[in-house]
């Protein structure tokens, strides 16, 4: 199937793209356009052009990964477009086809999959206190570090039910509920997405020479987590 056609099967794409008059209102308000070489208006123009070559270039580029999905563009567009939703469709397709590994920002999907994706399936949460390792999150500061090192006591102090049974913040999600989430991922194509991210990332990791630790590609993950070629913005 042609890429444009493929995109057109995505509800977000149908919702997100009507027609664009290149007024630039989206770019004017976009937090990403301010700090990245990113122009949401051009995203709309390129996909609207149905130019397969340019769409393929987009899918393989850093550009589609700059958006923060804040959806400020939706509030303002005088034609009712939402570039944020178009981006979501582009990112889905980029991962579907393995194109995401062609760009520095796209490759980061593996790290997100490993943390957020696996948390959702196996813990029932997107983020957990255990993830806030000070070395990976220096901005959490001394207080963050103190919380991390005294997780049980701090969460107990403020009334959370950390890893406990029953209700409350940070409670342990019952296994039968996690089983349901697992089946949802199986049936709805959630695992297909996660597996594709793993599959294409492995190929890329190999081709980039990250052959150490093939079981989990931790070197590759640490590389994609910290690398910034400095070419994403005007400095």
């Amino acid at each position: 199937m042609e890429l444009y056609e493929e995109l057109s099967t995505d509800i977000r794409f149908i919702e997100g793209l009507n027609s664009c008059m290149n007024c630039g209102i989206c770019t004017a308000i976009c937090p990403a356009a301010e700090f990245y070489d990113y122009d949401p208006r051009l995203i709309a123009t390129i996909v609207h052009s149905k130019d397969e070559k340019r769409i393929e270039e987009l899918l393989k580029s850093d550009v589609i990964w700059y958006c923060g999905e804040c959806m400020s563009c939706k509030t303002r567009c005088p034609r009712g477009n939402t570039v944020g939703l178009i981006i979501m469709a582009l990112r889905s397709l980029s991962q579907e086809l393995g194109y995401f590994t062609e760009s520095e920002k796209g490759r980061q999907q593996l790290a997100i999959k490993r943390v957020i994706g696996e948390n959702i399936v196996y813990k029932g949460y997107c983020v957990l206190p255990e993830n806030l390792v000070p070395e990976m999150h220096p901005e959490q500061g001394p207080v963050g570090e103190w919380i991390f090192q005294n997780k049980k006591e701090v969460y107990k102090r403020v009334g959370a039910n950390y890893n406990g049974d029953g209700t409350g913040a940070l409670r342990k999600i019952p296994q039968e509920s996690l089983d349901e989430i697992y089946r949802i991922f199986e049936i709805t194509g959630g695992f297909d997405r996660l597996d594709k991210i793993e599959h294409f990332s492995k190929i890329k990791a190999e081709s980039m020479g990250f052959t150490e630790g093939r079981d989990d590609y931790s070197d590759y993950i640490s590389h994609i987590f910290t690398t910034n070629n400095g070419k994403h913005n005007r400095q």
Partner: protein
Amino acid sequence: MKDFGYTIIKQRTIDYDQFDGRLLNEILEMEPSFKTCLSCGGCTATCSAADLVSFNVRRMNLLLRRGETIELESEIKKCMLCGKCQLVCPRGINLRNVIMLIKKSILKYKPVNS
């Protein structure tokens, strides 16, 4: 300072309040026809240099009007001064003269630390 693994990014936004209009004003005074640019792109479409290198004559007006002196300097170097742009301009702007004037004056207004 602690290494956070990232830095604060400079804004890409054109901050009009920081605009240095000295070069622009000088050019407009010497070649007032340049004020009437419509941004139609006729000049770029016919440009001899644009056939060979990435060069956009139309953007010259914008670079001047946004005070992008450094970029402007590197852009005008690409012009071959053939004057075709002037022939197609619907507003009859003497673009060749504009470029000559920029070449002459740009050094005066270039930011010192560039």
